[in-house]
């Protein structure tokens, strides 16, 4: 991998992360197998950047992101996070995967999350100002009057007016609710925010407003984003680098321009070619994908993508290709990454 946590510019490094969910059967709930939702992935997020994480539903992108911030306990692997809580400088590195939960709590202040569905992720019985205030209370940082100003400042930072403060979530539109969720995420002044499909439930015009807001806040509050989404054009717009997942594994990581114009994994190529282009004069040339995404509890041997890959050869059916660096800041998990000539988007 090009960069690691030893580099002070790296905020989070995930090493060989695994998250397996047991499949239980029978009266005694015996474990009969595992769904390998995240199967040995490694990546890093640099301070101030946006890393986009894409893939189809069930590929493990949400599980990977949630395990990387220890919302789920990892099955194996390390999550190295650079904390700046105790003063400035380079900060201290903690392995979130190994920390006892008690010691996790102060670190949670530095990591926040925004969910896809803004109605189900906000408590309907709490007013907007209470929702935004709650994280401060949980962490013992509610200072009464001073916090009132803080909450008002956060709401105005996300474009809500002070008369909205005492209203309840149902009184708002989807886009406004997402703004409330973003204000809540900002309350503890985190350095890293996991955004899980934050705009996919929003209308086109509201989506643009929300994406612009996220970019403005990133600059204003010096934020680092892990942006999980399935919409390739949204991810391209907001990300600096993009990682592609397939059946619990990372198949390609690269800076966005590089990944979109010069993909080096056949799955990335197929994914890009399937993305509809809002330009009737220049439609993309589709690369048909046969078959379906394999079952993550029973994936095929070798490269998980080989049954659908039009370039597959014998080695792909037996040997698992590791994610290896193939160019500057560009990694691919394909046996033929160096020789294939793949079609990107222009």
């Amino acid at each position, binding site marked *: 991998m090009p960069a690691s946590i030893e580099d002070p510019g790296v905020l989070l490094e995930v090493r060989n992360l695994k998250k397996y969910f047991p499949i239980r059967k029978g009266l005694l709930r015996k474990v009969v197998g595992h769904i390998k939702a995240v199967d040995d992935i490694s990546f890093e997020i640099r301070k101030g950047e946006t890393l986009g994480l894409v893939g189809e539903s069930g590929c493990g992108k949400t599980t990977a992101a949630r395990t990387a911030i220890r919302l789920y306990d990892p099955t194996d692997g390390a999550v190295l996070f650079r904390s700046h809580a105790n003063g400035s400088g380079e900060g201290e590195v903690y392995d979130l995967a190994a920390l006892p939960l008690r010691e996790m709590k102060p670190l949670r202040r530095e990591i926040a999350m925004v969910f896809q569905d803004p109605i189900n992720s906000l408590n309907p019985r709490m007013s907007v100002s209470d929702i935004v205030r709650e994280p401060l209370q949980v962490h013992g940082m509610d200072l009464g009057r001073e916090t009132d100003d803080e909450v008002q400042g956060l709401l105005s930072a996300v474009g809500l007016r002070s008369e909205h403060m005492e209203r309840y979530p149902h009184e708002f539109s989807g886009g406004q609710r997402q703004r409330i969720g973003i204000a809540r995420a900002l309350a503890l002044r985190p350095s890293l925010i996991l955004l899980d499909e934050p705009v996919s439930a929003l*209308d*086109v*015009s509201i989506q643009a*407003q929300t994406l612009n807001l996220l970019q403005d806040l990133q600059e204003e509050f010096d934020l680092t984003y892990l942006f999980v989404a*399935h919409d390739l054009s949204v991810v391209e717009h907001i990300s600096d680098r993009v990682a592609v997942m397939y059946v619990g594994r990372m198949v390609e990581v690269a800076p966005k321009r590089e990944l*979109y114009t010069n993909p080096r994994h056949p799955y990335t190529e197929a994914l890009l070619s*399937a*993305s*509809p*282009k809002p330009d009737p004069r220049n439609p993309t040339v589709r690369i048909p994908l046969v078959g379906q995404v394999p079952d993550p509890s029973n994936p095929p041997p070798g490269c998980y993508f080989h049954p659908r890959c039009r370039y597959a050869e014998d080695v792909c059916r037996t040997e698992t290709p590791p994610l290896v660096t193939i160019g500057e800041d560009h990694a691919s998990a394909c046996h033929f990454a160096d020789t294939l000539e793949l079609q990107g988007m222009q």
Partner: protein
Amino acid sequence: MSAAVLDQDVLLDVRDLQVHFDVRRGTVRALEGVNFTIRKSKTLGVIGESGSGKSVTARAIMQLLAKNGSIVSGEMLYNRQGDDSGDSEFIDIAQQPSDSQLMRDLRGGEIAMIFQEPMSSLTPVYTAGLHIGESIQLHLKPRQTVGDQMAKAIAKQNRIPREEARQIAIEMLDKVGIPRPEERVVSYPHELSGGQRQRVMIAIALSCGPKLLIADEPTTALDVTTQAQINDLMLDLQQEFGMAIMYITHDLGVIAEMAEDIAVMYLGRIVEQGATDSIFYNPQHPYTRALLRSIPRIGQTEGSRLEVIEGMVPDPFSIPTGCAFNNRCPDVMPGICDARMPELLTAGDGQRAACLLHDPDTMREVTSARVH
């Protein structure tokens, strides 16, 4: 009647359609004079944000509005082909009761509909809480095999015995690209993937050889690779069967790939309609332009911000007077746009736009007012 002057090329001509819903707070004017044309064997894409009335329009054509909804005025002239002779006549669907024999025949044979794949929903698109009549199968029932459900639906649609319908079901499954259809007919819906379930719905819809297929956000819940497969399949089947498609979506990328013509809806009205190329390359209505500028495009947005449409779609009880878009419009003419209702007039490359900037009478007044 005006129907006589319609071109034989036209399959459905909707004129000044108004649909209202009675709810506790009052009357929701869901459609406020909708006009569009669907041509035979062509695809009309209908695009709009939530609340624009896309799905209500589709349900009005099927005469399957919820009980609290009614067609207040307007015409929906459907070009119905005679059985043997090549003759055809235009019938006004708006005048037909929902449970009339004619509507049943149309729904069972000539007009079919598919919806968003309901079992694997990513995005909640249905917000209006509309109820669908029993005569249309919204989704596959979990406890019956795919083959049984298909055979039942096909037998009912085509009025043929169940055994014959089962054979058609297998043929149709093969046509929509389901491998080993003889084995698949005995599986249950949960054993299929989201994409396969949507293929089954398409197979049922096309088994009666419809002239018009209404597809309401058919790929919204599906992954991008599955979406591509389903859309390619629909285009292939259109080539083979020659049906017209009314494709409803909020996705400008999908519409660019699927449609020959596009109707852009905003708050219960068509604000612009025309050829896909004109809509994308020479849009005439400020809303269409703003919508096209607000979407991220791969390779074109590096480091830049998206242009946004200010504000949000107003709720149905506080729709602005005059042009409904005037409170968000970058080109608004104060005192004019909030006082007059624009009509759909020819503009640009022969498309039609409902904007006072394209209304010569209004613009003449504006210029003379400036001179004085």
